[in-house]
């Protein structure tokens, strides 16, 4: 039930945003993520953006995964 999926923020209007998931556009509340900007990715849970995805951290995790898989 705690499912949340990445969604791209396309536009913002007050507490509401238009987000895109896999090419499908839908409405999302950004009451919990007022710092969000157009172009950010958010974690969308039951119609609410519960966090902004940290792209630098995503890159960092990917580097870590590649490093770990090199050293057994």
């Amino acid at each position, binding site marked *: *039930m705690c499912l949340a999926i990445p969604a791209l923020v396309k536009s913002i209007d007050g507490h509401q945003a238009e987000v895109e998931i896999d090419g499908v556009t839908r409405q999302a509340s950004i009451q919990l993520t007022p710092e969000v900007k157009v172009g950010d990715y958010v974690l969308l849970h039951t119609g609410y953006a519960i966090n902004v995805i940290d792209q630098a951290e995503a890159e960092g995790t990917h580097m870590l995964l590649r490093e770990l898989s090199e050293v057994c």
Partner: protein
Amino acid sequence: MKFVNEYRDSELGKKLIDRIHHHSTKPIRLMEFCSGHTVAIFKHGIRQLLPQTIEMLSGPGCPICVTANIDLDKAIALAHLPNVIITTFGDMLRVPGSHSSLQLAKAEGNDIRIVYSAQDAVYMAKDNPDKSVIFIGIGFETTAPTIAASILQAEEEGINNYHILCLHKLCPPIMKALLDLGEVRLNGIVCPGHVSAIIGSYPYQFIPDDYGIACVVSGFEPLDILLCIDMLVNQIETEQYKVEIAYRRGVKPEGNKQAKLLMDTVFEVGEANWRGIGVVPLSGLRLRKRYERFDAEKNFDINPGPSSEAKGCICGSILRGVSTPLDCKLFRHNCTPEHPLGPCMVSAEGSCATYYHYGASYGE
């Protein structure tokens, strides 16, 4: 899909699994707290790819499953009141209470509607000013802030016919309660990713500090989970227990401050009734006095009568990690997703439903 596909790379996955095989020497038992993790672990066949040293156990992290019958009965009783529209997430509909379910109540002609979001329920209240719209508020810290936001929105827009049945539960206190019960010996916990997106990783510090157990927050893609297991194995092998995050793109140590603020504005911590565990102090949320007018329990007269459990259903001990669905005599014979007897078979993320759908894939 960005931030999804990158974490499903099977080549990287194989290498991580090799690494885990190489590093894991001690027999250990890890619990994935969150039922979303259980589903992902089964779906991607992770259990059978892990070395024999690692045993994975499902935890109580399915909000629908842990809702006690007495609370389900309240939701069903509310549905029978006149001039009421019950709004709920879809999975709740089929969950059997002591005598009925929301689905049966709906078939009897009561107005029960599935919503995608608490915000939809607020709009429904706005569109139906002559009815009371009651939202069945179940969920952990992932969902509770969205409900808080919906109440604040209703307040801001002057909507007075929106109410919630507040059954929200908190994860760290139930983890502590489980560890204190001491029924299952654990070496590490896979902590819930989206609960942690809200609360951060600090609230888990008691797990390594007080119990000497490894603790890593995980995302839900296969590589997230493998990275988490690798980190857990590393902590256990080196005996250096701490709280780590394997899901840094979604979880900050301090969590989401705004979400925590809204949650704290609307709710206060109180006791909650957990299926299989019972009433645990300080493990749930209730509305603060200032928001009492949104509280369905305070504003409607409901008397659900005495509650009872489905005979033979062992959901309670499955949720405590003491049993698995395979220990239930009713599993697959009398209890199936089409004819579920307990919530663990109804919820798409319930352990019984997960074993039912993916059980064959790990040679059970």
